[in-house]
């Protein structure tokens, strides 16, 4: 006989003749005692693999569904798979609980957790249909943005002007510090790295040209767009998807507001105004960063650095950079809003929308940037 004390529930396990075992339980079988009792009884039984088990409940003073769980788990434990199993001396209460929840009700095996599984063909089909639905939604969204834009041009007073100004502040003004810092450091890095090569030829002064051209026509728009995509593209997606899942967008539609006109157009217009401005800031701070390196490390004077920058930059570069940033602005705002409107389901949808907005924005920004590069080589 083995006996374990796990107060206030104890048990005695009697190994009988020919592997016929008896388990006597005493005390309370509830949430506090069941796990421990289950562990140790299972361990004891597993070692000996009895042919039959008699469970004697005469000493049990209280038994709830956790107690029943103990009985069920014993009944279905692998060690007792083919064994005979009997319960005796259950009190009226315990018998009632066992009748309701006992081993006969515990069907095995448990259904596999997780969603329905499909074969590869069905999954491919499912994914294709999903992609087509997404594409259709995308085209419809672009169309309704276009129509709303036309209606705003026709009737400018339909634009929600206050909202637009608010978005300009959060997307533009609030982004100035981070854009300025990143650009300043980027200008410093570029100046420093290029100087390592250029000083070998005594061409220090061309550091200024390099920083200016690279920032104004290429890196300024890209860096600004990526920072804004991370800050505001994700924010648009999160805001709009939250409204979507809490039925606010449905409410707007029912009140005969055009959700696109109400939510999307102000954001697109705000982005189109402030992102080019941020790009100008970005180039400016990068040139300042380059100048800082030029003056402190490369023996250039402020005026010569400045003069060289002015001489190198053509107006075309500036416009090129700005027109790129305008395109990026449209991408960021519309992708952010699109991902928001597409959101479906619970709170996780908000996170997914924000993540997917940033990823899609950055991908499209790089894609369009390379298109611009191709265009320029044929200009």
């Amino acid at each position: 006989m083995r006996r374990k004390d796990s107060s206030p529930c104890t048990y005695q396990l009697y190994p009988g003749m020919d592997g016929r075992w008896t388990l006597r339980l005493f005390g309370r079988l509830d949430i506090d005692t069941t796990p421990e009792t289950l562990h140790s009884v299972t361990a004891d039984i597993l070692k000996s693999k009895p042919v039959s088990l008699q469970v004697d409940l005469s000493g049990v003073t209280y038994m709830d569904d956790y107690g029943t769980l103990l009985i069920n788990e014993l009944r279905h434990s692998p060690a007792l798979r083919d064994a005979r199993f009997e319960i005796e001396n259950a009190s009226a209460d315990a018998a009632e609980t066992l009748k309701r929840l006992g081993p006969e009700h515990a069907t095995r095996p448990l259904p596999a957790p997780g969603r329905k599984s499909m074969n590869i063909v069905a999954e491919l089909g499912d994914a294709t249909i999903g992609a087509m639905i997404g594409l259709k939604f995308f085209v419809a969204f672009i169309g309704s943005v276009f129509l709303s834009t036309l209606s705003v041009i026709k009737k400018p007073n339909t634009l929600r002007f206050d909202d637009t100004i608010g978005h300009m502040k959060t997307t533009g003004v609030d982004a100035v510090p981070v854009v300025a810092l990143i650009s300043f450091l980027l200008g410093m890095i570029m100046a420093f790295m290029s100087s390592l090569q250029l000083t070998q030829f005594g061409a220090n002064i061309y550091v200024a040209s390099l920083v200016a051209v690279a920032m104004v026509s290429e890196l300024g728009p890209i860096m600004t767009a990526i920072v804004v995509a991370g800050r505001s593209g994700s924010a648009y997606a999160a805001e709009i998807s939250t409204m979507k899942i809490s039925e606010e967008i449905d409410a707007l539609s029912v009140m005969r507001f055009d959700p696109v006109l109400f939510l999307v157009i102000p954001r697109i217009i705000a982005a189109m105004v402030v992102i080019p401005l941020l790009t100008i800031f970005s180039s400016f701070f990068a040139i300042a960063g380059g100048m800082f390196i030029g003056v402190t490390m490369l023996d250039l004077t402020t005026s010569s650095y400045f003069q060289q920058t002015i001489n190198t930059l053509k107006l075309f570069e500036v416009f090129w950079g700005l027109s790129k940033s305008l395109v990026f602005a449209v991408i960021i705002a519309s992708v952010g809003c699109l991902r928001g409107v597409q959101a479906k389901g619970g709170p996780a949808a908000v996170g997914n929308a924000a993540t997917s907005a940033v990823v899609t924005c950055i991908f499209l920004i790089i894609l369009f940037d390379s298109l611009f590069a191709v265009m320029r080589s044929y200009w």
Partner: protein
Amino acid sequence: MIENTPVDVGHLTVRYGDELILDDLSFSVKKGEIFVILGGSGSGKSTLLRHMLGLERPESGRIIIGDTDIAECSEKEYAAALKKIGVLFQSSALLGSMTIAENVALPIIEHTALPARAVAEMVRMKLALVGLGDYEHYLPSEISGGMKKRAGLARALALNPEILFLDEPSAGLDPITAEEIDDLIIDINRRTDTTMIIVTHELASIFAVARRVIMLDKTSKKIIAEGTPRDLKDSSPNPLVRRFFRRYDRTEQKTESNTT
């Protein structure tokens, strides 16, 4: 703890800034009782509930849950007191990213040492108890409001709490589903002897489930009535209370005349 009063609130006063929300409330709940806290919008029902759950601390007074005064206990004692309670929130508060079964399993996995198979079995028992046996693998967003309440109830009952708090359990449900939830509450109370504290303003469900009611008042911020639902309806000296219950009478008469 006084053996048969698992919940005891004494001289509870709550203020937000200068605004008085609850003024000197005292009541206690007997073991196994279904106790209803009643009141109109803005009467402080939700505030009282938040304090009884220890989510906020009052300005003064005691809130004894089990044998702990959660109005002024340490974090550790509070955690121990939380073991005794289960809560069904008004919105059900199921985690949207998890299936119904995972939601119910969450507290069982966290707070017991049961093996995974036994946890799954327990989850099934709890879901069967609330009549949601076939919905284990559904997400909360895929089931109806009434089912969410049931799932929330299964999760609240997962650890066999001594005291169950229910915030507006039948609000926002159609009369039949609301009645089903009420029956479920009565059934669970009868089977498990769980003390239940229900915050609601649904008169029909008060008459169905409540053994004892207290009513909070919006203007005085005090308890203006205490007793069985019948007592309050028939013989309360307070006109506000009678007015509150008269509305139920009207709807009852209407349905009666409709059916006859």
